[in-house]
């Protein structure tokens, strides 16, 4: 049944039976990125997608457009400015008081309407809570294909979108096409794609689009918004330095050793999934397939075996350092530097050594 799908052997047959794109889709053109904004802040995944979208648009020889939804005001204009700086040629904007905060109904109506009017061939969204909630509705209304959580996007020789994503818990990758429908929709997780260079002062066109939305017609009401306390706001996905611990730490108390090292390094800390399941660490700290994808400059993993579900979340790191007592642990297959030693004894020493090394008065550093 449905779970039989991704198990097809390599080179499944249907794709080779590709028919010509139906007439009604032929005028679909250009690559779009939904620019996700909440409370005036553009989600960084939108910039990552604009970076990927730029490459796709250039390969196809078409334009890259951002789509910005929000309440009338400065936020929308700012989001457009950012989108231009990250590669958009133009932005479609829909401004309406109803769009001040995210709700599925008005957002999916607005996005569907602008897609139907301006007909993109590719539409990309972030695989965030908002993006996933929205993408499924829009794809169902348009009756088109949607490939979720992509890690790689490309266009092939006949200009179709080739969307690659992990499947079966990350043990395999599969490349998915939406052959006979438009737009071809895909979502990508934050940090799965690299952040492009910001080009200050780069400009583009703003194309306002009007959608008739009234608060009275919307059934779901927002009673209040409870912001996370600062301590809850982890910046794990976007941190430059991440230290994480796994079951090798053996007790919740020992996890403090990871936090100590993180604090000396000015890093964020994370963990493998069993620690979340045991209730030692909160779920927003989990790294991997069902947690966060990270892309730090350096990732230090202590007592983590490196299971595939963990691996897929950390592979974007520039430098992976593993501390594990088992020299055959799978983490050494993808880490760059390893040390086979007891993390519980080693972490305090490492923390101390880094503290000395990084302190502004460090002799070591002046000498080095």
């Amino acid at each position, binding site marked *: *049944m*449905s*779970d*039989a*799908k*991704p*198990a097809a*052997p*390599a080179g*499944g047959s249907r794709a080779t039976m590709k028919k010509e794109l139906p007439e009604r889709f032929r005028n679909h053109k250009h690559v779009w990125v939904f620019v996700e904004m*909440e409370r005036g*802040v553009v989600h960084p995944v939108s910039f990552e997608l604009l970076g990927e979208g730029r490459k796709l648009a250039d390969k196809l020889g078409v334009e890259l457009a951002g789509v910005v939804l929000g309440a009338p005001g400065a936020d929308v204009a700012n989001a457009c400015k950012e989108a231009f700086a990250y590669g958009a040629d133009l932005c479609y904007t829909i401004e309406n008081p109803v769009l001040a905060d*995210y*709700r*599925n109904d008005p957002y*999916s109506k607005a996005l569907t309407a602008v897609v139907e009017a301006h007909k993109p061939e590719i539409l990309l969204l972030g695989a965030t809570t908002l993006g996933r909630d929205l*993408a*499924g509705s829009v*794809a*169902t209304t348009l009756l088109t*294909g*949607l490939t*979720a959580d992509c890690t790689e996007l490309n266009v092939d020789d006949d200009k179709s979108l080739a969307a690659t994503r992990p*499947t*079966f*818990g990350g*043990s*395999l*990758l599969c*490349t*998915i*096409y*939406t052959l006979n*429908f438009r737009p071809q929709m895909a979502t990508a997780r934050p940090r799965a794609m690299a952040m492009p260079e910001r080009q200050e002062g780069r400009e583009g066109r703003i194309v306002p689009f009007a959608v008739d939305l009234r608060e009275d017609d919307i*059934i*779901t009401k*927002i009673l209040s*918004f409870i912001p*996370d306390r600062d301590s809850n*706001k982890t910046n794990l996905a976007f941190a430059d*330095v991440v230290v994480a611990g796994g079951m090798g730490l053996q007790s919740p108390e020992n996890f403090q050793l990871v936090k100590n090292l993180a*604090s000396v*390094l*000015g890093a964020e800390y994370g963990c493998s999934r069993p620690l979340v399941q045991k209730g030692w660490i909160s*779920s927003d700290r989990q790294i991997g*397939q069902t947690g966060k994808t990270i892309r730090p*400059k*350096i990732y230090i993993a202590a007592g983590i075996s490196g299971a595939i*579900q963990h691996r897929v979340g950390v592979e974007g790191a520039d*430098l992976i350092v593993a501390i594990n007592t088992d*020299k055959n642990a799978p983490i050494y*297959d*993808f880490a*760059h*530097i*390893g040390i086979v*030693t007891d993390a519980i004894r080693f972490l305090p*020493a490492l923390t101390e050594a880094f503290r000395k090394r*990084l302190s*502004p008065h460090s002799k070591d550093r002046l000498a080095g």
Partner: protein
Amino acid sequence: MHFVVCIKQVPDSAQIRVHPVTNTIMRQGVPTIINPYDLFSLEEALRWRDKVGGEVTVLTMGPPMAADSLRKALTIGADRAVLLTDRFFAGSDTLATSFALSAALKKIGDTFGKIDIVFCGKQTIDGDTAQVGPGIAKRLNLEQITYVSGINEVDGEGGTVTLERRSEGGVQVLKTNLPAMITMLEGSNVVRRGRIDDALRAARAEIVTWSAKEAGIEDVTMCGLRGSPTVVKKVFAPSPRAEKAAQVEVGASPAESAEALIEAIFKKAPKIEADLVKLASGY
């Protein structure tokens, strides 16, 4: 009230192995489980049934053996189970899956009583798309609230539900009208163990089994491979990294090992030191 929980039987992916030569999944002997995220939705449905009264129906689309998962859900406490099974459903992507499940949900509403809330899991661990729930909501015109961290109130008489939804940087407190489609966040509740009498009842319970036709689906071209706009063209194993990790030799003491590791790091990535100094001074 009538709550319907969509559950999916999935392979326990912790135990999936990939054939090293053919790159296909070796399914033989891989145990199946109820998609773990669906259990939080099942628990929430059972809780509200216990609180406000009514029934919980579980629904799955899958091969005949998916009946095992339904029976498991009955042992946890569901009142009724519906299996949607037909060869026409083979190869369904999310759009085709939500089409078939929507038809079955309509039929469930007609046969067993109007549905107040359709619960789905946040996502599956094999498909992992989080799209089937929104697809169902759109097709059945249900209010859609995903990533719910808690339901505060279900008001059957007023036909409303008040709940908390996780969003970027905070929680939205929302009120909406029934019928609604809700997906629960993991950890939003603690899934119960079934009671003995539920287990006894489940063992004997009849599982309502419908084909596409019996579920009221006339146009089977909307189902399965034919009804799926997405096509899996290639399945492959991630390419292994060429070299293994460079091992740092363990010194006489942890302190010596630490020095050696730091040296190795700075040698491999010279720019890291400057980055770290900058970050460390900021804490």
